[in-house]
């Protein structure tokens, strides 16, 4: 099964998501890294390439002062919500090229409470945009799902069911932040944030860290008796005509989203179709994002989500379990860590080690998708 060009995840580590006073983001990253190394059964000295990043918690390569000064080449990435995906893309390319044999990828973050407050100037927009009250990611997601619901017949109930599923899964995941199940009525009746999205339909900025150990070729079997193969990782920015966050205007001419293109590329490179996916983790910044990304990734048709979600097919016991660890809704959003959390969860599911949130059916193919400002997406296909 494993050839010279194969790349596999041979170790995973996580620091619980949530709020952790007194622990820095960097320390969480180092804890996750140590756990991933222990899971792979190797020492830090055996890693010959590392990549990682955070959005708001410092330079990932500083963790060498905690992990040990081995001289390893360590590339910092900072790419919004695609930070983890970008780190993984970098490590994957280094392994495939033969420049490295064993790589560590780490993502962590620690954000203050409340919504993010990005500055327009850092996103190429004038200060008028922020002063007018338009520089909010929550607005974008609300505007996008509002239009999508009108075009594709998605109900408020379906938005609530996505959140209810997330909290039900989170309740089963010891590393999740929100572990209390909420009913559809509680979610619909909660404080309105941005119509049509209520408080419990949004994820919150939080804290957490994830690390992965990857190996190539002959090292895979030497390091792991249950490797999870990284069949592809694809990363895209937006094209003209896609509707993305922080857009003072959008063209009337429409184009596929960054997610659509990254997912299509990931499936093509893997030689695996969306129909083959057994379990998937997709960006659920809010309930509507999960609904829209389900179709953008090709996992279903546009409009099909209403029936799919209402019939429970995306729940743990369904045909296509989505965000089995509770997703961003239950785990929170430490930007640098979320993309790798998705891969971590797929690895657990494919190994059959997800414990209480293990999908009951046999899983051989997993898929992940992250999305973030200002229109970036990274997708992976993983198999056993």
């Amino acid at each position, binding site marked *: 099964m494993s050839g010279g060009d194969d790349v596999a995840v041979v170790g995973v580590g996580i620091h619980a998501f949530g709020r952790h006073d007194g622990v820095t983001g960097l320390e969480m990253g180092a804890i996750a890294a140590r756990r991933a190394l222990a899971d792979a059964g190797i020492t830090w000295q055996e890693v010959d390439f590392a990549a990682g990043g955070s959005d708001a918690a410092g330079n990932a390569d500083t963790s060498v002062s905690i992990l040990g000064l081995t001289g390893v080449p360590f590339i910092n990435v900072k790419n919004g919500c695609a930070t983890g995906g970008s780190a993984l893309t970098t490590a994957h390319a280094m392994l495939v090229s033969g420049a490295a044999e064993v790589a560590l990828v780490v993502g962590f973050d620690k954000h203050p409470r409340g919504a993010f407050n990005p500055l327009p100037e850092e996103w190429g927009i004038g200060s*008028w945009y*922020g002063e*007018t009250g338009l520089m909010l990611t929550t607005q974008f997601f609300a505007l996008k799902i509002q239009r999508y619901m*009108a075009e594709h017949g998605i109900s408020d109930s379906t938005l609530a069911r996505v959140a209810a599923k997330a909290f039900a899964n989170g309740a089963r995941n010891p590393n999740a932040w929100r572990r209390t199940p909420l009913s559809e009525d509680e979610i619909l009746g909660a404080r309105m944030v941005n119509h049509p999205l209520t408080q419990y339909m949004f994820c919150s900025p939080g804290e957490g860290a994830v690390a992965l150990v990857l190996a190539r070729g002959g090292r895979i079997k030497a390091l792991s008796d249950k490797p999870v193969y990284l069949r592809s990782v694809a990363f895209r920015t937006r094209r003209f005509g896609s509707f993305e966050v922080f857009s003072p205007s*959008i063209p009337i001419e429409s184009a596929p989203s960054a997610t659509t293109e990254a997912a299509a590329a990931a499936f093509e490179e893997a030689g695996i179709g969306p129909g083959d996916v057994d379990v998937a983790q997709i960006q659920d910044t809010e309930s509507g994002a999960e609904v829209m990304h389900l179709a953008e990734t090709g996992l279903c048709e546009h409009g099909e989500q209403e029936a799919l979600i209402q019939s429970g097919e995306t729940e743990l016991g369904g045909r296509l379990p989505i965000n089995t660890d509770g997703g961003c809704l239950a785990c929170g959003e430490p930007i640098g860590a979320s993309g790798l959390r998705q891969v971590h969860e797929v690895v657990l599911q494919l190994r059959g080690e997800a414990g209480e949130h293990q999908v009951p059916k046999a899983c051989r193919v997993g898929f992940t998708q992250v999305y973030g400002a200002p229109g970036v997406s990274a997708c992976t296909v993983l198999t056993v």
Partner: protein
Amino acid sequence: MTEARQLRLIDGDVIGCTEREPRLIGSVCGQCGTVTFPRQRSCPRCTSEDVHARELATRGELWSWTIQCFAPKAPPYLPGGVEEFEPYGVGYIELPGEVRVEARLTESDPERLRIGMPMDLTLIPVPGAPDKLTFAFEPVSEEEA
């Protein structure tokens, strides 16, 4: 005395005034005709630098909307805007044949907003800076529509 007070536009590169009427300033590509807002120096569609300023249409249709129910953080909002915060509408208005522009809406009642309704450009005070004006769109009155 109020009338004599000088009102300033939030950004003269974004909003212009023609015969006392506000106009949004976008740009149009001389090569492919793509309209952008605000003005860009190159075309995001075809990458041409043959791009010129253009005053955009003042009437369009509501393409999508939401209500901003919590006060944005300052910065980038102004501290005074946080203090005087009331929920406000936000939408994309499709200017026919041009572009969809994101803007504040003068209407903040979700029952009175629907996709496709006609909207006109107007000016509103910047929240927290009453001597400055920013742009917004208001529903077209029924007689006028």
